């Protein structure tokens, strides 16, 4: 072979060689997996994935649209416990005036966030029992906690988007969409059920969760047990649900069970104020934990001084309800601030921020006493009702004399007043007014619509426009 020919062929061979090498390696190159994400299938391949999904569900409760923000403040703002202290950059301006619309309600984000959590929970409930590893007791636990959370989310949706249980005598009025399995996008099965069906689904989930919980072992060991759903928090949630259903016997019994558990205790009068700087206190039955290294706005940023996003001041309507000696009152539990010439009072609930921020206390022991008191009053057990009521009253105001109310009506009125004083900023007021068929009366209020007479369509929020526009089956709430 002569040199000339070799010389001519070589580059061709190099290029041909390159082609073969490149080509053979390339097909494989096309299989790309994201690094910080996993497919749904891969996530639920094993126990750890399913566990991470459940941790994700807990994390989602801390969403700014849920307990760490809108869901918690909305009932207090609309009910009259708080008012806006600023005029710009504030949340829930139209909700404050009962003027939100389906197109623009800020609470639409809450609706979407809650159903996104349900989507995750449904994957866990469907797939956790069939993961490749983990003991039965462990997977039972995952399913139990997810099922209890699903009840919590459905219950919150019912309170926000449907009239109270007693709105009609048989609760046959319009409820919410109940999601018990992952919903595919082109599914046409998305429909609202009745409030009765909604509460039934919540109770079914809670009871199922309780059964599985009994056959399980703990999977999350980090943090406090009150950061996770457990047998006690299921009972506490049942008590709250039964109270809304006016099922006094069950409410009484469930609240009693939680109170009877030795692991919870009330803070003393002296420690009450400072207890709000602590995480996972002895009063917390279910507390949504703050993620590690959390540095964003926590729920307390709404009303705690020194925070950039300070915007919800306590109304005089509420402040005037406290006696001068009540630790929960104006002098001991509030910080005043002059904003543009006006003096505002901000609560010391959740006073710590950023990495020191505490979790959001979703269910607290004092609520259980007040639930039992209310159920007892309804059931005619006045001594128990007075005892539970006085326990909370006198814990707040050591100087208060013990009440001994003898009629159901006076008892109920006193208990509701105490609920307002004790549980303000914890997301109850509007719902309490609604289930008790009370009017919204706001005196310290700056809005065109300060008051609502029960019944009124605006006790509940509109279904977001997107859900109505994209689904022919969807029925909007009246007057929206």
């Amino acid at each position, binding site marked *: 072979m002569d040199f000339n020919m070799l010389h*001519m062929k070589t*580059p*061709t*061979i190099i*290029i041909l060689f390159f*082609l073969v090498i*490149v*080509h053979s390696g*390339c*097909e494989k*190159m*096309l299989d*790309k997996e*994201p690094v910080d*994400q*996993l*497919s*749904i299938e891969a996530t639920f391949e094993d126990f750890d*994935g399913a*566990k*991470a*999904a459940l*941790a*994700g569900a*807990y994390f989602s409760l*801390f969403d700014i649209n849920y307990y760490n923000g809108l869901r918690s403040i909305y009932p207090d703002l609309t009910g009259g416990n708080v008012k806006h202290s*600023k*005029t*710009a950059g504030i949340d829930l*301006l139209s909700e404050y005036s009962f*003027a939100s*619309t389906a*197109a623009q309600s800020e609470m639409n984000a809450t*609706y*979407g966030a809650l*159903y*996104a*959590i*349900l989507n*995750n929970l449904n994957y866990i409930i469907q797939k956790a029992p069939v993961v490749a590893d983990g003991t039965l007791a462990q997977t039972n636990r995952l399913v139990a906690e997810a099922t209890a959370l699903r009840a919590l989310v459905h219950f919150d949706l019912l309170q926000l988007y449907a009239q109270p249980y007693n709105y009609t005598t048989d609760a046959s009025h319009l409820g919410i969409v109940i999601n018990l399995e*992952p*919903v595919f*996008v082109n599914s046409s099965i*998305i429909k609202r059920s009745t409030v009765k069906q909604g509460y039934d689904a919540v109770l079914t989930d809670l009871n199922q969760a309780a059964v599985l919980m009994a056959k399980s072992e703990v999977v999350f060991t*980090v943090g406090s047990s009150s*950061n996770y759903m457990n047998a006690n928090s299921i009972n506490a949630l049942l008590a709250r649900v039964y109270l809304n259903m006016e099922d006094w016997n069950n409410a009484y019994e469930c609240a009693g069970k939680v109170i009877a558990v030795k692991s919870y205790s009330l803070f003393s009068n002296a420690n009450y104020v400072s207890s709000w700087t602590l995480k996972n206190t002895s009063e917390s039955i279910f507390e949504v*934990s703050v*993620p*590690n290294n959390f*540095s964003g706005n926590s729920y307390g940023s709404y009303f705690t001084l020194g925070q*950039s996003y300070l915007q919800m001041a306590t109304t005089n309507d509420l402040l005037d309800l406290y006696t001068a000696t009540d630790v929960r009152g104006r002098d001991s539990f509030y910080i005043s601030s002059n904003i*543009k*010439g*006006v003096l505002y009072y901000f609560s010391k609930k959740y006073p710590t921020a*950023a*990495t020191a921020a505490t979790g959001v206390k979703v269910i607290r022991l004092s609520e259980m006493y007040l639930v039992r008191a209310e159920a007892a009053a309804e059931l005619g057990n006045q001594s128990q009702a007075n005892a539970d009521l006085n326990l909370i009253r006198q814990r707040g105001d050591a100087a208060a004399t013990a009440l001994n109310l003898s009629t159901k009506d006076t008892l109920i009125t006193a208990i509701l007043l105490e609920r307002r004083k004790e549980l303000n900023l914890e997301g109850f007021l509007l719902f309490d007014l609604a289930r008790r068929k009370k009017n919204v009366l706001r005196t310290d209020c700056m809005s065109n619509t300060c008051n609502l007479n029960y019944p009124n369509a605006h006790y509940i929020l509109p279904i977001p426009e*997107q*859900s109505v*526009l*994209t689904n022919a089956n969807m029925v909007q709430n009246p007057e929206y």
Partner: protein
Amino acid sequence: MRPAFTLPFFKLFLCSLVLFSSLAAIAQEKQVDLTLRAATIQEIFTAIEKQSGYTFNYNAADLNLQTKYRFVYKGKLSGALTHLTRLAGLVLKQDGSNILVRVLPSRMVAGRVTDTKGIALPGVIVQVKDGAHIATTGPDGTYKGRLIAKDLASARFQFRMIGMRDLVTEPLADRKFVNAEMEEDITMMKDVIITSSYTNGKPREEVVGSISQVNAEQLQVQRPIESLDKMLEGLVAGVYVESGTELGKAVKVNIRGQGSLIPFGVSRTTSSQPLYVIDGIPVQEQSESEANTLFNAETLLNPLAGINPANIASISVLKDAAATTIYGANAANGVIIITTKSGVQGKTKANLSYSQGVSTFINRLKLLSGPEYYTLTREALINDGKSVFEAEAAAGSKTTDTDWLGLTNRNATYSNLNFDLSGGNSGMDYYFSAGYRKQQASSLNNDLKELYVSLKVNHRITKKLKFGITLSPTLSSKNGLNAYSANTYMQPNIDPNDEQALATQSTRPNPIDVINQNEDFSRSLTFNGNAKLRYDVFPALYVSGTIGGNTFYSKQTQYYSAENSTGRNLNGRLRIFDRNTYSWLGFVQAGYDKTFKEHHSINLIAGYEAKEENTDLMSGTGTGFSYDKIRTLSQASVKSSASSSLSSATISYYSQAGYDFKKKYFLNVSVRSDKSSMFGGDKKVATNSAVGLGWVVTKENFLQPGKVLNYLRLRGSFGSTGNSRIGSYASRGLYGFSTNYNGETAAIPSGSAAPNPDLGWEKNYKLNFGADLTAFNLLRITAEIYSNTIKNLISTIDVPLESGYTYVNVNSGNMRNKGFEFSVDADLVKHKKFNWTAALNYGFNKNKVLSLNEGFTDNYSISGVASALKAGYSTTAIWGVKWAGINPDNGQELFYAPDGSKVTRSAMLAYGTSAWEVLGDRLPKFQGGMVNRFSYGDFSLTLNTQYSWGASYMLRTAYYGDGALITYSNMSVNLLDRWQNPGDITEVAKLSNLFNQVPNSSRYVYDMSYIKLSNANLNYRLPEKYASKIGTRAVSVFINASNLAYWYKDKSEAGRNGIKELRNTYPEARTLSAGLNIGF
């Protein structure tokens, strides 16, 4: 099961080409090796016969037996025969092992070629008409050569040169001297156009596709503009640049309208931008929203700012299917090919240029003064029911007047230094350049610095083997701390030194403190490099391999100081984002280019390409700094970090075939098949193809070039392209793992887009007709009409929220862009001293969504851009409600309800989006530009004008509302005209701080039609005789003014803001610069 990706046609074609080339090299042809210094024809014949075994048959009487030739040859027999033919004017014909010899008459001819002004033309090719080459003219324009022809007397000469019209002489008769005077080729059809990065340039005449090319001179790289995408504004018909005023930020370039739907929200990242290819390597488009949300706070730099404008030789804009389909699935929005300068053989040349300039604001936004602000705030609060005392307390100082805009802005400077060196010999050429640019933004402390280096070397290893390499790193640094909108809207009645007022009255940080104490800077390195190897198997066939990389390293550091309210509650906050993008691309291809039987030209390329892009992201956040001056993560008491990465890969086969007959009829076919990792399941492969036809009508007998019509060519093309840039994992149902609960790893379903494994490719079918003509020996006109139909559009459909998702990405729509483009240029005055050249372009585009989201609702966005995707309308339409003015009785806004009645704000809001109608269109009906260039002696003046007609602009209403944000922000001076008393006729409602705005009101939609004198450049070139006296080759000086003047159709009221002031976030700046170029 995934079907295998087999493309038998391509593989076969490729293999056969490669195989063929190898075979040809070892073909059975006889080799000869002769060295005859002085031999007669007969002696040469004998020598060849000995070596080859062939026999020459001839009549000795016909041959000139006396003349002795020098004959040195080594190679194939056929080559030797060709050589012999030329040498002695013989016709040789092979018949078995016999070679028949006939003698042709020949004659030595000579002459001189000049242009019409009598100036000698070197390098003119002299040939027999459509036949053999005779000679090439030397530096003095003369030539000498032997003409060999069957019939010498009837032979015609043809003279050819780029830039000049072909000249064909009368029959030679008995002449021995043929002089020629060539005319300039006014059609410019011989200009070389870069048609793709896979092929070399082609004469414009042979290009069937729709391609507009802009060279460095037209681009006017002396302008103080940092990136080439901004420079394209107004230069190319059909290219609309939505330019912004923020430094270093990418702009939107729309070629023939928008080729894909813009995404709503952040879940999808479908690109509607063209593909940029620099010297064969695509630039990776950066998309922030694709990455994990942890990285959303990062600000991205425009990757195109990494290219030194001074290095650009030409930019080709590929528009239709015939031009773009070779880029297949990336070409839906057009392709922009950037070719950088190469070295030129010859003496080493160096150029040094420097320019410096200063910018001042134009069309500055007018805001309320301190006292005005006080008055209006007080009034708004009183209107809202506050007591006078409360209102006055809340409104702040009555007298303080702070000009925050003035305090946070400046007259910015600009400077640019460039050096380049080029040269080479027949075996090698090189081009080296280095540049430094420093450009300040008007916002104090914001600037952009670039250091560019580039080296390009081409080396001919052997006659057939060529090697080329390009390396161009660019270092950039950008400061972007000073946020214009946050700072200039600060309340004007707060004294910047009054800490008390700042703390209590303002929710914003003190801008002066932010500028002085915080940090926000990015540093990046862009590295483009490629290497090419090309081997010419034989003159018609080559194989080549190219490998290139595009790397982008960037690091952004943000520090929020504890000294001011941005970082006070966290005791200082540091965020660092580290982004590394690596992409590589390799392609091997074979090309074949040959003319058969004089009239049939064929060119073919076929290739295989593999491409991979990887982006690695890392970020670190720290808070709790005990000492504000040491700003490293190690000093932070609380730290967190994150990492993520994205990757995608594509492999492709491509082929293009061209054929022409007599350079009169042209055919071009391209096919490309792409397989991408971006799509799910079976949808990975997309094949696109296109066909184009061209016809030079003036080469027909029935339409010979005349005085009116000098040249006419018609073109047409049809084909498809796709869009693969939809984001890396757009089709997947995923769980994201970027968070924790109590420190336990937490996973949540990712994003708000539901999974859709059926997501597939968009197809963009492009139909184009064009005509190129030259008339009156003056006007060069190109006119094109096109219709691009996009099928299987990827769009986002809202889903019921109960699914847990907000939307899903589906292939659900069809859309069409139709339009017309026109460009004309002419040398209006051509005189020895005075010349005037003008170029005008016009582009008209109309977009319509044909169908969308079957079975689902149309899609609206309630954001400031007010977009809607709705069948029957343009995708860039602005939607909203019609404003009906202010009710003179109570000062409240009124709107037109769908039934035509005037209703109040709350009544209008109740209608929701169902009442929305089209208020305008974000993109113009037509737009274009005009460049006039005058030269007089050594002076030249270039004026750039741009126009845009029919585009609307929807204002971000926040600072222009009726007091909604007034306690928080300064407002437009237009609020001074607010309603105050019953009977007031005004356009501004009664002020209210509780005012809940109606979004997307026609009140905030402005007509953006304008004409602007965007640039003027005056250049003076020192006459050569003086330049050489100071030891230089060429010297020129220039002054340049950008953004000289605007004429808006929608005029601003005196003393008030209109579109002119409101259009840009950052106010526009007029930059005056002056510079010097020296060539050595």
